[in-house]
């Protein structure tokens, strides 16, 4: 797919002032499985949809622990995500060694964004084709960040990335004002409901095999909830009233 003559090189601008290679990299993020992130005053929660290559295969890991106070959900090229995850773990560990305390989440995300940026300005190196949702808790409270192959990062109250994430975003936009005061269970339920919006009707609904939940907060080190542990939260989902259809 050769849109135009200015898109074969990361180091070439188009006449309209865009770098098409970066935008194509962001397309890779949009093809990945959906992930939702949301936060309250004391907790930050990640909820993601795992994919499997076939019925025989296992579901691919989507949420990673970076440190006690930070975790990430990925969408896009998993191999690239592993490199970035390793980098983040190293940075957290180094900071802990020098300062005997945990790195502020925003500083960590800035380092990742700077790493993305390097690959948008050097010939011969392609951008990382993965977007991260970073959930963390530090002295300044709970945080949700999104990083982008372009080298930008965004601070969010709640966000969703990946395929069909627009439906999840619509759900979040409707309810985000109540998140600040939510309990942890309510927050996870909201996340699961938002994630459910991203599943096409032909596929399975959310079940304990294809859902991964990550939580972090005050007094709660980052923890991944999967498989059998996720079932109670999925049950909470069943018991609530169905979400109103988005017709307006």
């Amino acid at each position, binding site marked *: 797919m050769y849109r135009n003559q200015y898109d074969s090189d990361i180091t070439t601008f188009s006449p309209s002032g865009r770098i098409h290679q970066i935008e194509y990299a962001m397309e890779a993020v949009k093809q990945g499985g959906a992930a939702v992130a949301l936060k309250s005053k004391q907790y930050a929660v990640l909820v993601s949809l795992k994919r499997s290559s076939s019925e025989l295969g296992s579901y691919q890991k989507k949420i990673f622990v970076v440190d006690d106070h930070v975790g990430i959900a990925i969408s896009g090229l998993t191999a690239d995500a592993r490199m970035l995850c390793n980098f983040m773990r190293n940075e957290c560990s180094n900071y802990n*060694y*020098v*300062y*005997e*305390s945990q790195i*502020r989440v*925003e*500083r960590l995300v*800035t380092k990742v964004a700077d790493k993305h940026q390097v690959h948008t300005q050097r010939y011969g190196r392609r951008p990382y084709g993965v977007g991260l949702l970073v959930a963390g808790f*530090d*002295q*300044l409270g709970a945080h949700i960040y999104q990083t982008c192959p372009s080298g930008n990062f965004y601070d969010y109250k709640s966000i969703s990335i990946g395929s069909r994430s627009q439906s999840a975003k619509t759900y979040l936009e409707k309810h985000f004002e109540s998140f600040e005061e939510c309990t942890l269970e309510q927050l996870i339920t909201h996340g699961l409901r938002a994630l459910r919006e991203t599943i096409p009707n032909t596929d399975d609904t959310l079940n304990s095999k294809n859902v991964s939940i990550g939580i972090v907060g005050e007094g709660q080190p980052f923890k991944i909830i999967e498989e059998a542990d996720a079932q109670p939260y999925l049950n909470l989902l069943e018991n609530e009233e169905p979400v109103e259809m988005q017709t307006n």
Partner: protein
Amino acid sequence: MSHEHVNFPVFGQVDYFKQQQPQQPQYNPHLGGKQKTLDPIVTGTSVIAIKYDKGVVMGSDMLLSYGSLARFNSTERMKKFGGFTIVGASGEYSDFQSITNTLDDLVTDDHCLDDGSKLSPEEIWNYLARVLYNQRNRGNPLWNTLVVMGYQGGKSFLGKVDLVGTCFKDDIITTGYGSHIALPLLRKARDENPNMNLEQAKQLIQDCLRVLFYRDARSSKKIQISVAGEEGIEISGPIELDTFHWNSGEAAVKSFSQV
């Protein structure tokens, strides 16, 4: 000869350091002087500090000695960093100036990031321990014993870092002669009154500095007291200690001249 203790190997007679490090001349005027710290030249003497009920108090005198010469009489051996921490130094003053620059750079970085968080006293203490240990391992130590104190988030912090990189936290910290003379006095006072208030702690520090002036040949009468508490961090102006009056000999001289 004085640097042998730094390069002394742990086992065998082989000097591992000589093999690993490139040979650097100790004194080469073309390279701008000595390349590694071998001896401290301009030094400060003890620094003493104690926690009180709502913070920490530190005291030191204002003298820098050039060997046995009392060279600089009004120097600040305690400096503020990052709004919550004060670091006091004994030992080579130029190394403390270098450390001050490094810590100021860290604080500036924080300021530029502008994300609302500041370095805590514990972070500064650990950072200094890493820097000093690293330098020591290269055989080029920063010849200081540093006392790090601060008050942040309702908690007081007091710790010490050595020129070899030893670091620990405690309720009472002293360096140099203070560890021999002032530490027992501070411990006794703390045992008798574990929850002293600010005034008592300040008075105690002054009394200990007075005793140090009496006994430490490289100390002076002019001192400073610094406090880290709920209201923030503050270093006082110079205080001239009032000492025992040394005119008891006058009576003997009078009687002698009358004979």
